[in-house]
C-alpha cells in the first residue's frame, strides 16, 4: 500500500484579483520506505507540494492520502496531531530551538507532541544521537555546533517519533557540498535503518542523483519520473 496517493492535485493562490496556479492536477504514488526527490526550478511547486503532503496546507482540488488518511479533511487540531504522529520535518534552515540543547531538541517532539514517558524518551533520543553521530555534542546548544551538525540533529528530531514519512524541503541548501552529501548519506542510512519514507526537494543535481525516485516538477506540473539505478540504496 502506498504511503502517499495524490490524485489530480491542484493548488491555487489568490493575490488580489490574480489567481496563481501553483500545482496543476498532479497525480502520483509513493511507496513506503522509498527515498524520493522532487526536483525543479524555483517556482515549480516543490515547496507547495511538500506543504500539502506535510498537512501544512490544503489542496484547492483533488485528493491527497498520506499514510492512508485523506489529509485535506483534517482540521487544525487533528492536522497537528497527524503531523506529530506520522510526519517528520527537516527544514532548510535547520530550525532547531535555540534555547534547547541538542539532546532536548531531539527529545522535544516526544515530550511536547507525543507525551512519551521519560525512560522511553531517553532510550530513543540516545539511540538517535548515536545513529546520527552527535552523542558527544548532546549537551551543546545549536549556536555551538556547525551547520552540518545542526542538520544531523534535525534529521534525528524528524525521526525520533518513528514517523512513516520524513519531509525535507531543500535540506542541503545551506550546506557546503561535502556536508550536504554527508547529510543525504545520513538520511539514506536512516531510511535503511528505520524503513521510513524520505521525500526531499532539491535543485542540486549531485544531490538529486542520490534519490532512488526522482519526480520532476515544472510550472506546477509533474513532467517526469525516473528511477535512478544505484540511487537511494
Amino acid at each position: 500500500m502506498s504511503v502517499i496517493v495524490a490524485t489530480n492535485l491542484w493548488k491555487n493562490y489568490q493575490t488580489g484579483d490574480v489567481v496563481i496556479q501553483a500545482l496543476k492536477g498532479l497525480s502520483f504514488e509513493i511507496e513506503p520506505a522509498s527515498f524520493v526527490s522532487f526536483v525543479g526550478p524555483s517556482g515549480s511547486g516543490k515547496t507547495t507540494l511538500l506543504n500539502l503532503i506535510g498537512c501544512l496546507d490544503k489542496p484547492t482540488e483533488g485528493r491527497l492520502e498520506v499514510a492512508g488518511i485523506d489529509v485535506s479533511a483534517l482540521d487544525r487540531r487533528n492536522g497537528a496531531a497527524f503531523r506529530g504522529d506520522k510526519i517528520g520535518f527537516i527544514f532548510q534552515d535547520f530550525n532547531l530551538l535555540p534555547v534547547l540543547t541538542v539532546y532536548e531538541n531531539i527529545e522535544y517532539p516526544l515530550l511536547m507532541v507525543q507525551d512519551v514517558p521519560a525512560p522511553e524518551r531517553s532510550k530513543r533520543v540516545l539511540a538517535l544521537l548515536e545513529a546520527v553521530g552527535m552523542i558527544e555534542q548532546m549537551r551543546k546548544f545549536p549556536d555551538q555546533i556547525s551547520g552540518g551538525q545542526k542538520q544531523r540533529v534535525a534529521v534525528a528530531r524528524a525521526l525520533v517519533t518513528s514517523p512513516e514519512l520524513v519531509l525535507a524541503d531543500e535540506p542541503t541548501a545551506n550546506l557546503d557540498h561535502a556536508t550536504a552529501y554527508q547529510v543525504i548519506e545520513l538520511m539514506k542510512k536512516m531510511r535503511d535503518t528505520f524503513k521510513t519514507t524520505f521525500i526531499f526537494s532539491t535543485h542540486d543535481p549531485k544531490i538529486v542523483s542520490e534519490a532512488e525516485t526522482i519526480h520532476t516538477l515544472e510550472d506546477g506540473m509533474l513532467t517526469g519520473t525516473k528511477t535512478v539505478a544505484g540511487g537511494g540504496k
Partner: protein
Amino acid sequence: MSKLLKIAVRNLLRYKRRTLLTTSLVMLGVVFVLVFVSLSGSFKAMMVAQITDSMIGHLQLHRKGYVASIDTLPQNLNMKSGAVKRLEKVLGEQPEIEAYSPRIKFGGMFSNFAETTNIRLNGIDPEMEFETVPLLSGRVLEGKDTIGRGEIWVPELLAKGMKVKVGDTVVIIATNQNGSVNGKQFLVAGVLGSATGPGGRDGYIHIEDAAEVLRMEEPEISEVAVRIREFDRLGVVSGRLAALLDKEVNQMGKPIFEVHTWEKLSPFYNIARMIDLLTLFMKIMLIAIVLVAIMNVMIMAVYERIREIGTIAAIGTRPGRILSLFLLEGLSLGVGGAILGNLVGAAVIFGLNLSEITYDFGQQKDLLLQASINPADVLVLSAIVIVISAVASLQPAFKASRMEPIKALKHV
C-alpha cells in the same frame, strides 16, 4: 509542565536585559504598593486606635435621637436609670463585648476664680472607662493617671489658656435640664493631652460628681461607650446589638436605643475611607504597570519568534501547548516580579521601621511610624500581579497558538 516551564524560563533568559527590565518594573510596582499599603495601613490603624481607644470606644449606645443633637449635649435625651438597667442587661449577655462605660456628658462653665470659659465635660466611672478606652489615661500629660471624687482632668489647651496647673482649685458651673444652675469646686488632678477628633478636648470628672453638678435625683446616662473583643468583628457585633436593642421599645412601641459605631461618630472615618481609596488607586496603577509591561514583552516575544512558532507547530505541537508556553513565560515574569517585589518591599518596610520616623497627627506630636503589612495583603497583591500577568500574556499567547505554521515558517 516542569519541562514547559523550563523552556519558558530559558526563553525569557534569551533576552536577559529585557526580562530584567520588565521584572524590575513589576517589582518596583509591587514595592511601591506594598510600602504605601504598609504606611497608610499603619497610619490608619494608629488613627482608628487613637480615636476609639482614647475617646469614643468601638461603638456607642444612646437614647434614640441623641446623636442627631450630639453637638448640644442634650440632657433631656439622657437615659433614665430603668433604661440603663435594661441596656446593661443586654450588654452583659454579649460574650463579644469586652467592656462598657456609662458617661454623663454636659457643657458647663470653667472658672479659675479670675477668668471663666466654657468646657465640655464627661462624667465617667474611672474603672469602667479605662477598660473601655484604655489609651485615655495615657493622654494625661501631668498629674495623676486616674481620677477620683472631687477631681478633674483639664484639657491641655484650656489649662494653658486659663493658666491652671495640677493641684489648683477650679469651679465648674452647669445648668441642668430643668434650668437650675449649680456649681462645684474641683481639684485639678491632671492635664490631659489633646486628641484629634470629637471629644479630644473634653474635660473629665467622676460620674457621681457629674450627677451632683447636674442635680440629678437619680443617675441619668448620656451615652454608653462599648469595647468589643475583636475589632475586626465590629460590624457583626454592632449589627447584632442593634437587632437586640431594637426589641427594647417604649410605651409607644418605638425603639428606645440607638447604636453607632465609631465610623458614624467620627469625621475621621472619611479619612480612613480616603486612605482605602488611595490604596485602591495604587493597586489599579500596579495592574496597569504589570499589564502594559508584560503584554509589551510578550507581543515582542511572539513577533520575534514567529519562525520558531512555525517550527514547533509544524512538528505537531498542539495549539494548547503553544498557548501554555507563552502564558507560562508571561506568568514567570509576573511571579518573578511579585517575589522580588515582596522581598524588596519587606526590606524597605523593615528599613523604615529601623529608622524610627516620627510624624504629627493633629495635636499629637512625634507619633512613631510603625509600618507593617498584613500577610493577606501580600497574598492579594501577589495574586493580582500573577493574574494580570496571565491576562496580559493571553492575547499574544493566543495569537501564537493560532498561527498558521506555513505562514510562520515563511516569516523573515
